[in-house]
Structure formats: structure tokens, C-alpha cells
């Protein structure tokens, strides 16, 4: 499949603007964003006007728009990196592709710029294989297949819910790791897409992600907010929490989550050592989350995404609520999110 074969009308590219000047970002992505509809959501806490170059089919949403749609008190759900979830909420498309505004297209080992949008859509359009590991990775890509010993009954795969891309240059490492290895850059281009097996947990990064909104949209929850959450990724965990929920629900419903290509090139922003000064509470929350998700079983009766999110929120409140107020708030946010999703998406 090439970019000529994907249906651009099925895709919204949602960009959370944490920087006011999107000129460099959008200019560098122009070859791959052109022809697509863009939703740019401005961080409600960003004071400056956004600077967006001409020539894009773009709708911009700011704090005022958020308040109109979800009410002033709910607009706080979309501050900082979570602003992009507002874009997910109001989009009407089948697929969403979301890239952080400090990333530009990467180059593959042959020197060609990577069309991350097309690769994400290809990942989403092709089946996933979470039930058995294929040692040649994506069996549906050109030049590969299922290997000997792969059960035939599992070769048609399952729907792909999400496509998690990676990053060259500045990888998505946490603050302690990056602070320790200030010079470390990711130069390794791993030429593969693979499905993360069912029941396996992983940290999903929001920096370069795409998902099937029609299939799992409500499961991308803007829920976990760190007390000291900041404007650099090192000071957030919202996407990791969202990803744990998404993966668990996908496993429950029999969908797949892919990881690997495409790469984006991620630039410097912020100072890992500076971020270290904040108490790294994210670490504690992750430690508590892991055993929770490991043992969690959603009821068999939860067959719709919205029900899965509600059940998950209930379990979070019951089992993690007493550990940390952040979890109670996350659970409440998840419930609120489903209410908003239902109200916004039913009035069509």
C-alpha cells in the first residue's frame, strides 16, 4: 500500500499545540500532511496566538472552543499534553494520527524521509496478530509471511486498534535515564512493525501514535494527571496510563496493538536534569499500576468500548483509589470522558 492507496478522507491528523509557533513543525510535515484534514488543539494554558503557515486544511481549537463544547469545568481535562484528546473527541474520522509538535519527519537508512502518516494508516488497515508471536514480525508486509509453526487458524489476524510509532534522535526516555545519559541519542532504525502480544503490557507513548477511532476511540482516556505535570514529556504520564487502559481493553475485546515503524525525528526540548528536580511521582504511580493491570479482569459482559472504560474506572477507584488521589481523579476523569464522548458523538 502506498500513500496513493490510502483514503485520506478517513483520517484526521490531530496535533496538540504546546508551542505557539507551528511553522517549522508544519512546514517540515507538509509533504506528508497535505491532502489530509488537520485538527490543531491549542493547550488552553498557552497564552500566545498560534502561528500556523498557509496551505493546510486545518481547524484550530482553543480554550474557548473547548468550553463551548464541554463546559468550562471540563475544559481542564484538556490542558497540557492532554489537549489533543479534545481533537479525538470532536473528530468524525475513522483514523487518527497524532504527533507531538517537537517532532519532524525522520530519514530511513536509505536517506528517504519517512511518511509516518501513511505508515500508521497501513498499520491500522492491516490485521494484527496478538495471539501468537510471528518471529518474522509483521506477516502482512511485502516480502514476509507467517513462519513454520504458526497456527493456520490464527493467520487472518484481528483488527488493529492502535499503531505505536517510535523516535530517532531523542527517544522517549524518562527523566532519570535521559539525565544520566545526556548525550545518548537513538540512532537505531529497526525496520519492523510487530503486534504486541495479548496480555503483554507496554508503555505506550503519545509522541507518535495512531488509532482506529471508530473501533476504540473512547478508550483513549485523558485521565492520569501527575500533581506536578509539566510541559515536557518527562513530566507527564498521561499517555502511558492511557496506553495501559487501551491495551487492556484491546486484549479484552480481541483487538491488536502494533509497535515499531514509523519513526519520527524528535528534537530537543526541556532539560532532563531540570525535570528531575520535581519529585518523580510518576515512578510510584507506575509501580502501583502494574500489578493492578496484571491481575485485572474486565467482566465478560463488557463488550462495548464505553462499558469497558467504565468498568476499568470502577476497578481503578476500588483497587487503587486508596493508594493515591491521582488514581481517584483518573477514575473520575475516565467516567467523565465517556459522558462527554457519548454526548458529543451522539449529537450528529
Amino acid at each position: 500500500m502506498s500513500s496513493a492507496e490510502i483514503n485520506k478522507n478517513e483520517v484526521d491528523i490531530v496535533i496538540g499545540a504546546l508551542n505557539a509557533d507551528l511553522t517549522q513543525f508544519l512546514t517540515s510535515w507538509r509533504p506528508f500532511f497535505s491532502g489530509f484534514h488537520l485538527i490543531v488543539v491549542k493547550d488552553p494554558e498557552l497564552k500566545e496566538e498560534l502561528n500556523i503557515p498557509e496551505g493546510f486544511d486545518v481547524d484550530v481549537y482553543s480554550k474557548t472552543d473547548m468550553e463551548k463544547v464541554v463546559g468550562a469545568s471540563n475544559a481542564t481535562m484538556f490542558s497540557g499534553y492532554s489537549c489533543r484528546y479534545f481533537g479525538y473527541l470532536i473528530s468524525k474520522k475513522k483514523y487518527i494520527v497524532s504527533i507531538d509538535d517537537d517532532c519532524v519527519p525522520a530519514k530511513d537508512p536509505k536517506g528517504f524521509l519517512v511518511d509516518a502518516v501513511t505508515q500508521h494508516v497501513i498499520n491500522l488497515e492491516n490485521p494484527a496478530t496478538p495471539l501468537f508471536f510471528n518471529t518474522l514480525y509483521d506477516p502482512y508486509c511485502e516480502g514476509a509471511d507467517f513462519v513454520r509453526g504458526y497456527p493456520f487458524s490464527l493467520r487472518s489476524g484481528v483488527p488493529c486498534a492502535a499503531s505505536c510509532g517510535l523516535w530517532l534522535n531523542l527517544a522517549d526516555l524518562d527523566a532519570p535515564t535521559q539525565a544520566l545519559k545526556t548525550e545518548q541519542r537513538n540512532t537505531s532504525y529497526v525496520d519492523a512493525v510487530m503486534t504486541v502480544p495479548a496480555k503483554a503490557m507496554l508503555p505506550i507513548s503519545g509522541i507518535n501514535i495512531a488509532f482506529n477511532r471508530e473501533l476504540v476511540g473512547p478508550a483513549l482516556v485523558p485521565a492520569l494527571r501527575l500533581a506536578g505535570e509539566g510541559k515536557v514529556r518527562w513530566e507527564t504520564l498521561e499517555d502511558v496510563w492511557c496506553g495501559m487502559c487501551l491495551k487492556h481493553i484491546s486484549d479484552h475485546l480481541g483487538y491488536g496493538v502494533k509497535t515499531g515503524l514509523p519513526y519520527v525525528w524528535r528534537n530537543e526540548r526541556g532539560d532532563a536534569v531540570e525535570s528531575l528536580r520535581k519529585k518523580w511521582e510518576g515512578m510510584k504511580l507506575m509501580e502501583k499500576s502494574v500489578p493492578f493491570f496484571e491481575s485485572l479482569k474486565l467482566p465478560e459482559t463488557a463488550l462495548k468500548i464505553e462499558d469497558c472504560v467504565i468498568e476499568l474506572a470502577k476497578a481503578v477507584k476500588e483497587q487503587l483509589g486508596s493508594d493515591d488521589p491521582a488514581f481517584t481523579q483518573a477514575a473520575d476523569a475516565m467516567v467523565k470522558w465517556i459522558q462527554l464522548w457519548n454526548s458529543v458523538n451522539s449529537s450528529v
Partner: protein
Amino acid sequence: MAQLFSSVKPTPMLKDELDIVIPTIRNLDFLEMWRPFFEQYHLIIVQDGDPSKVINIPEGFDYDLYNRNDINRILGPKASCISFKDSACRCFGYMVSKKKYIYTIDDDCFVAKDPTGKEINALEQHIKNLLSPSTPHFFNTLYDPYRDGADFVRGYPFSMREGAITAVSHGLWLNIPDYDAPTQLVKPLEKNSRKFALSLKQPILYVDAVMTIPKGTLFPMCGMNLAFDRELIGPAMYFGLMGDGQPIGRYDDMWAGWCVKVICDHMGWGVKTGLPYIWHSKASNPFVNLKKEYNGIFWQEEAIPFFQSVTLPKECTSVQQCYLELAKLVKEKLGKVDPYFITLATGMVTWIEAWEELNSDEGTEAKAPNGKNE
């Protein structure tokens, strides 16, 4: 921290701790290409087929060769668990080895080149894989965090960053991929490459990653390019009953892989897959393969749900105990699929008995082979 395992210091050769096990039926000319990488290691050659045939081995290698007569002599009636006329017989080599690690490779596998054109030292990469931890409990999106230049990503729980001990390193293949017979028949010209690579000599589907297969996930383990910690998982590496007199072939490594993964998951050990690549030169005859695999294609549909749902009791604290428990369950649950599984379960038990015997103190004397270099 992950950087403790970087290759700032060179990878140890482990030449006194690792045996290379090679099954063969024809000759070992392929060793000539591997000489720079294998010459310092002890080889265990398991000669399948007619024991009177003389296998030609290039000069200068330190090896022990075992043919069927040796296997029968050493194991006596227990030799029934070792396959005949199938490369599954290689697991006899695991049993007689005294080393901590095993590397096994097929005799039609050659040295591959990486995308820069450099020859790949597959053995060195396997050793790196085995000596560094695995991460079976949480998937790292940047793959092996212990590799140079890699690390754990944001969100990876700190409590899991020491990883688990690595029991198995499963390598891959360039050129002829390890496809089953139906796939070979449908795609006769396909090599492990992307279409743009047809103009290049070297196929380019080189995926530069090592990763841990998550706990609870099964995979098809190929025995062509495989290394493992024999002291840890050796007793579970039984390659089953295949070939002559058996209704199935080309499922030896698959069977071992399912058993090994279930036991590794139970014991908390890791299984890695990915690098290193070797160059697989021979595409075997798909029609012959189809005949061998035929039953396997149906039986795996039953076997896999069995392995996916099996739980080993807490009381099984050694690999041997786990394996015997598995054998019992195979007989109970898969015996109804076909009587072959009852025979196989018996083979599994015999294998453990033979393993225990040979690996006890008294067993060592009985092991001397007939074929040995001077």
C-alpha cells in the same frame, strides 16, 4: 541500570563453557565458512542416518561425533526417545554435552552479512543475548534495553529494570525464510527480503533488534540458529519423536519451543528472539515437507491451545519436574487427539530419565563417543 551490560568490555568467548551442536547426514563443509568463529569451540556432531557412512569434517576442529550406534550404546533402551532420520536427533547432543551453554546450527546455514556488508558473528551475538537479562514481564518499545545505545522507555516500571535471566536466544535467517510447506508452495521465489531489494545481492529485510518474547506468549521456535543455557533449560529442550517410524516431521523444534516457553514462563526466565541472522542457503523440497508436516498442521491447532492454557503447579520447582508434569498433561489432554501424543509423552519421560542418568556423576563415563578427533 541498563548500561552495565553494554559492550564497553568485549563479549567473553565462553570457549570452555559452550558446545556447538550440529546434526548432519551428509558432510560438514559448511564449517569452513564458520572457521574464524567456531574454531575455538568444541563441537558435538550428531550424525543421523546410516552410521557406517563417514562424515567429512574439515581439519582443525575439536569435535566429538556420535552416530546412531553411539546413541544406542550410550542410552541403551532409552535410545528410543531419540529420533532417527530427522534432525531432531540433535537433542542427543544437548544431553551428552557437559557445558553450560549450547549453540545449535543447521549444516546448510552460513555466515550472513549485515547491511553494512560486515560478516555477522552469530555466536558472539547469541552469547551477548544469553549473558544479558531479558524483559518478559513488560514490553520495552525500544526492544532490548541492554543493547548499546538503547534503554528502557518512559513508563517502564523501575522495579522490572533488572530483568530476568535469559534462558534462550532464538536467531533468525536471511535468504530462505523458515516457512512451512503450504507457504513454500504458494510463494516459491520469495526470499526474506523486500521487493526493492531484488536488484541488490543482499536481501535487506534485516531487522536490527533483539527482543524478549513476553511472558504468556508462545512462538514458533526454529532450531536452525538457536542458543540456550543448558544448565537452566536443557532438560526441556527435547526435540520429540520425528522422522523414521513417526507420523510427523518438521515439528521437533516447534514442540521443544512450546514446552520451553511454558517452563520458562513458569520459572520466570526469558526467551529472546531477533539477532543474530545467519544465511540459510537451502530451500528444502516443499512436497517432501508437506508430507512430513501434514499431521502437524492439524495437530498444532490442538496443541497450541493446550500449551496456552496449561498451568504448572507451584510444587514444580525444577525444569525436570515441570517437564514430567507436562508429559503427564500431554498424555491426558492430547492423547485423545492422536495416539502419537501418548508415544510422545512416553518419549518425554524417557528423555528426562536419560538426561538424569547421563548427567549424574556415574553417567559421565558412559558418554565417550566412537568418533573423535585426535
